[in-house]
């Protein structure tokens, strides 16, 4: 389907009507399962429609074949918790778990993750019920700017699921694919080791 610029701008004008405050993005995400794109947006050139199981909920998204998993999660489904930084599979900020294994979502094609169990930071905890990684992290200042945080938290969750009592070296190995520009690394190591203790009931918050 070809769009002329004129046609496009006309459509775009009507699209602007649906704008609401940005605070509404959660409800957009919550509506899920919508294969309809916002009005006025043209269909992508090589359309695929896929089902994504994210933190236990099922979503459908329409995307181009070249679209990455991060783009589907954050741009199409508006699950904006996962940050993308380098977009070159180098920094780990965009990490999500696919079937329990950490992946850089900026360099995983969306189509590869279809119908698989995806875990993102939204699945970890919420304001009233922090996951031990989040609660211990706050107490140890494991996040300064916080941009890399969702990525390493998700990888740490994957590690603790597999290995509930990791050594410092095991934590370092598991998180070696994550860059933290604030260099909170010593606090991150302590956080993951001690969150493991909390999860095992050997320490409390």
């Amino acid at each position, binding site marked *: 389907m070809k769009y002329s610029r004129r046609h*496009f*701008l006309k459509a*775009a004008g009507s*699209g*602007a009507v*649906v*704008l609401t405050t*940005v605070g509404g993005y959660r409800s957009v995400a919550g509506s899920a399962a919508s294969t309809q794109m*916002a009005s*006025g*947006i*043209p269909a992508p*050139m090589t359309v695929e429609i896929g089902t994504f199981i994210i933190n236990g909920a099922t979503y459908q998204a329409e995307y*181009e074949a*070249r*679209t990455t998993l991060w783009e589907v999660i*954050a*741009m199409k489904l508006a699950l*904006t*918790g996962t*940050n993308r*930084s380098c977009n*070159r599979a180098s*920094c780990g900020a965009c990490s999500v778990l696919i079937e329990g294994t950490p992946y850089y979502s900026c360099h995983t094609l969306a189509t590869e993750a279809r119908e698989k169990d995806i875990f993102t*930071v939204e699945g970890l905890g919420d*304001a009233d019920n*922090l996951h031990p*990684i*989040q*609660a211990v992290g*706050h*107490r*140890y*200042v494991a*996040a*300064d*700017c*916080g*941009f*890399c*945080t*969702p990525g390493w938290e998700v990888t740490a969750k994957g590690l603790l699921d597999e290995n509930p009592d990791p050594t410092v070296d095991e*934590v*370092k190995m598991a998180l*070696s*694919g994550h*860059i*933290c*520009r*604030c260099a*909170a*690394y*010593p*606090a991150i190591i302590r956080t993951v080791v*001690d969150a493991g*203790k909390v999860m095992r009931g*050997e*320490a*409390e*918050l």
Partner: protein
Amino acid sequence: MSQENGIPKIETGPHDVIMIEQPMVRDYSTGGGHGPEDTLIEGDEQIVTQKWQGYPPENLNVVGKSMPPMAEVAIPRYLGTAQYATRVWMPGMLYAKVLASPHPHARIRSMDTAEAERMPGVAYILTHLNAPNGNPARLELNGDELDYVGDIVAIVAAETEDLAEDAAAAIKVDYEILPGAGNLEQVMAPDAPDLRQGRGNLLLMNPNSPHYDPDATFVSERGNIEQGFAEADEIREFSYYFGGAIPVPMQPCGGVARWEGDKLTFWGMNQGIYPYRADIARGLGIDAEDIHYINKWNGCTFGSAMSTSKFNSFLAHMAKVTDRPVKLMLPKDQELAHLNIKPENMTRFRVGLKDGRISTILYEMHMSSGDMDGAGIAATAEISKNNMELYTADVPHWKTLSYAYKTNVIRSGCSRSCTQQEVKWAWESMIDEMAEVAGMDPVPFRRLHVSKPGQSLTMAWHSDFGSRYESENGAVTYDSFASVEVIDEGAKAIGWEQRNPVPGGNPGRYKRGFGVAMSQHHPGHMGYHEGELAFQRLIDGDRGGPQFGIFTADLELNTDGEVIMKNALPDSGTNHDTALAHVVAEMLGFTTRDQIRVVWGDSDLTPLSQQWLAGKTITLQGAAICSAVNKLRADLLERAASALGVDPATLEFRDGVISSTADPEKTTTFAELALANGGSIIHTGRGVHKDQGRALAKGVGACFLEVEVDTWTGDWRMVNSAYCHDTGKVVNPMVAEADMLGSLIQSTQMTTDSIPWDREFPGTRHYSVGYLSFRLPTIMDVPERQTQVFVDSLEPRWFYGIKSFSETSIGSVPGAIANAIYNACGVRIREHPITRDKIMAGLKEREAGA
């Protein structure tokens, strides 16, 4: 972790901090004593203020206590809900992509966007041909000349990033490639091309400046260096090179613009909101009041991101034209071209030694300024001031000559401190080399030379921008300047006595060594005691208009007895509101921080403030906050005295309860007073940033390192560190520790990574591709031990003896690494960055020499 019922409890840090307390009475130029009744004479106006502003660092309940960062700022980071501009999402949003110049210097002969505009999903293409007039970025999209690789050629807005990128690639541009100079070697060559239309590539100061020189950018001197060298026992010369460095923020720079009628909402990424709101207003020719500017969280900014807001008005313009929200997230390779960097520079020293002390210094520094003239001129002045101060108080003869050149690279500027690491690396290497010439250990050699309390500042200079910096005749003296303490305590903490005095003298393949370097910064810009008087002058527009240097804060007491701070400044991981909340709680007599809340980073909710910079938020935004607390305190005392019918002098505050010492039955609460006033009591405080005047507090730091060099491979690692800071009273030790962990590692990265100018595009000065060829430290690179040494220097000018120290030590790290590697293996690296190859080459040379 402490044990409770047999189960250990997770407790807060700090984890590895040594606190050095000072006696309350110190022999400073500002006078001894410590009572609130003691006074200080400050500022150009000779204003008399109370020591510690009447709040001495005694009997504290909240200031100085470790507490996790404020929940409302910190917790969303762990949840993935902190609203970075990159997280802003709304239906119907367009994504912007930039077509960047592939050439260091070029002119656009012609360009054709017709085909790109017809491509699927393309909404708008902005170029210099259709850009709005008067765009505030001035040098961007303001003509057909392109000044550096990455300069903006066009910005495309389309339905997805991929479609925008497709269209950007389809824009046809005919470039006329112009001669350029991308580095010092090229720009200093006799046949260097003219980059400034005949005005010369060397940047010059305003001829009215006392530091003007027709042949240099900045000149300053004391004594007579010819006489100094004639009298010296020994003269040495040293050269050092710094290749340029940058800290690289995590969050992709950019923003989101959305219009609703004539009202614009903009989500930005920077260190303030009001200056950038004003930029957009100027760029689009609209009223700033019509812009709702939001910026609460950033994923790092490091000062580097300050210059990326040039895109803001373009995004706002594109959103207007398309009637759709527009979002930009710069990819890392393109972003690099728009960040402030630590510039490439070359240093030459000629140093005279007399009777075992440095008697004469000639300091000559050449730097590549990039595409902005002003940045280079400012940097040379800043560099000269920062570096001459640390060791020259007792040096009778010195001269500094700085040269900044326009070049076809990205601009120099704030970049995880302003002009520290990139030049102190040369100074600190030189001091170590001179210690060896003098036959002294570098620690006592530094103690001998470093400026000390009571000594006069040696720099008396005026900036090129008309503001007076320091007093004439050296009348300003250092006071709370813990220069001796940071050396002595650091040496103790690292175990300096284990250092082998013979460079490379330890046996075996893996050789350990110790190194030290110092640094000094200007945390002082005291905004408070010149207070409302100076503020009013700024409002009246005597310099730079009403936006220059103003900090404002509102403080609202509500019926829950909560005190809400309203601060405009965004948080980049800085946690400054946490520190300010400690101060507010302490001043209002709380014993915890629980009742303090913060609203920040939103122009609809928070009053006018400039931006944070140079690690001085505690005294800039803090000036406004403290001023507001003082007003609230006085108001509450008055209201309580009137309500209770007692003398206000008998009233005291404790955890929101106001009671009379004369009659314990007479009490009221903050909440009741707020209720009686219709639900809230609000006060506004103001402070100013007016350069340093005489009211300056200096901080000093030192970095002690133990490293291990593998002499078979040239690999090295940091084993142990003692990072020492002249802190004043530390507001929150655990947050301070967290900040300093980053400071050390970021500066280590700057020492070992140069900007990878040509790794991807050999033969040009191209910026490489983001993180790919830019080696950033990971979790595997942290030293086994990172100890912080906090020296409470009892800053006399600020509430509770607090002073900013976030960048006092940051400049010391590169020199400490170079010196430690030299001590470990005998290889002196004078050419940045420090790499395995250079260590190996040095080892082979030593072997051949032996």
